[in-house]
């Protein structure tokens, strides 16, 4: 393991980032095909790192058929290929596969791309096998309902987290207010939050991610060949899965998060205290609390108080989801959060720039938990 950590620590860098303009896509009201969205994001990412499509020899897709995309983009001689059914829980495994491929020379420049479009249908209830059908007879189902179950339980075990969830939603929107690409840029108040309808009580509208069109592409290459310039390195990353019958877990995914965190921080040779800003896969606001506890940014059960004390705002000790997260910027299943981490570490986040940000951590906490430390 020590060897592996040494080989992978900082070996790969994100050298190019391309994101579609989510606000503009929403404003047109015209859904765009996933391949077209992916194509736009890839073009932007290649421009960003000044590579040509012919330089790319690795392709990892999410919600996209890799062969259709490769054909459309005339990608030839691909040496590393992977097709993930979604982003979210697959983001860290994909980045890990890309990092390993680059570290050992299986590929030299890899595109990781996700697209989501209302023109496509996505069958991903996250409930394994027959259980999906057994949720439907109670007119419930899917991760959003399970997250609400976990939120109530978390409050029971660790004290009411309702105010913390509200503050996450408000902070996300406040960050999106400084992001011209964000779908929802208008600030919200505590009154707005409480006036919004329940989706699954105790969670309300602003606790939930949106559904929107867009795409994100990252170009990864070996750090050694891109040490100058705007490259942002992947310092350490790890995933850990504990699949259960239900999407909700009695321990809020604590064990797999702990396992992933231990491996990630060991590889990066850092601790949670060394991280300047965090990006958490907030499909629903409670996920933020589970990630803070699970990855050791807070003592178990104290994430709610940590949030209520204002630590996760842009001016707090650990700014969270600085582009607006999945509830306000876009639901690009974690990939927009990784893109934002890179933008912040490059110091290119404009009005929403976190001063002096040198390290960031992306986390996604679901039955399959994963984390990734990035640094400049």
């Amino acid at each position, binding site marked *: 393991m020590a060897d592996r950590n040494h080989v992978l620590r900082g070996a790969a860098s994100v050298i190019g980032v391309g994101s579609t303009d989510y606000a503009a896509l929403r404003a047109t009201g015209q859904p765009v095909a996933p391949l077209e969205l992916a194509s736009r994001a890839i073009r932007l990412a290649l421009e960003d790192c000044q590579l040509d499509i012919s330089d790319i020899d690795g392709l990892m897709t999410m919600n996209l058929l890799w062969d259709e995309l490769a054909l459309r983009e005339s990608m030839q001689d691909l040496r590393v290929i992977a097709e993930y059914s979604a982003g979210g829980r697959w983001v860290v495994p994909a980045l890990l596969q890309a990092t390993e491929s680059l570290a050992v020379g299986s590929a030299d420049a890899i595109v990781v791309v996700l697209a989501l479009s209302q023109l496509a249908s996505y069958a991903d209830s996250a409930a394994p096998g027959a259980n999906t059908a057994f949720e439907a007879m109670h*007119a419930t189902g899917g991760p959003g309902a399970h997250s609400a179950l976990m939120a109530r339980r978390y409050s029971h075990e660790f004290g009411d987290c309702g105010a913390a969830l509200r503050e996450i939603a408000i902070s996300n929107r406040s960050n999106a207010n400084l992001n011209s690409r964000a779908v929802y840029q208008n600030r919200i108040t505590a009154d707005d939050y409480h006036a919004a309808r*329940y989706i*699954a009580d105790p969670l309300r509208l602003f606790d939930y991610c949106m559904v929107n069109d867009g795409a994100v592409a990252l170009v990864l290459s070996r750090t050694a060949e891109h040490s100058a310039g705007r490259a942002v390195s992947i310092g350490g990353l790890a995933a850990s899965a504990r699949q259960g019958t239900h999407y909700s877990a*009695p321990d809020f995914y604590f064990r797999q998060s702990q396992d992933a965190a231990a491996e990630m921080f060991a590889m990066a040779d850092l601790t949670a205290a060394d991280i300047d800003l965090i990006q958490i896969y907030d499909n629903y606001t409670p996920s933020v609390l589970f990630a803070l506890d699970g990855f050791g940014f807070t003592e178990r059960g104290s994430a709610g108080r940590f949030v209520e004390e204002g630590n996760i705002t842009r001016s707090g000790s650990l700014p969270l989801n600085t582009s607006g997260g999945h509830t306000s910027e876009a639901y690009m299943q974690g990939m927009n959060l990784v893109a934002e981490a890179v933008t912040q570490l490059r110091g290119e986040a404009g009005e929403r720039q976190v001063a002096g940000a040198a390290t960031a951590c992306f986390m996604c906490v679901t039955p399959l938990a994963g984390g990734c430390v990035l640094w400049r």
Partner: protein
Amino acid sequence: MAMTNEPGDRPVEHDPHPDYLPPRKPWAEPYWEALPDGKLLLQHCEQCNAFAYPPVDERCSVCKSPTSWREASGQARLWSWIVFHHEFFAGYPLPAPYTVLMLELAEGIRMLATLAGAEPADLACDAPMEFLSREVAPGVFIPGFAPA
């Protein structure tokens, strides 16, 4: 599907297997046949004593031995619950607000069920609950639980 449509009446559907129920599988029939009698049947592994829910047509997930059906104690602890104030699923017979429970059965497994014969105000995490089959449409029963 049998349907009566008396003049001036709202059509009353008697669909023994509406869309919101899981597809009927032969190996899960004992489960469905027990619900109208107010009984909850679970698959049980004689070898390692594990219970399974929802019904699986495979062998015990723990030790791979064959399973047999056993009537559950009906005793559970309430892990959490959610209330749907709006109807998200067309054709579902229970009107909003309706309540969905996550239970920890005495048999050691977790189970989703519908609140039966009580209001959300009656609920508390970790409270003891007991099984109550709930008829949500004529002849259609789903598992429910009520405070014990």
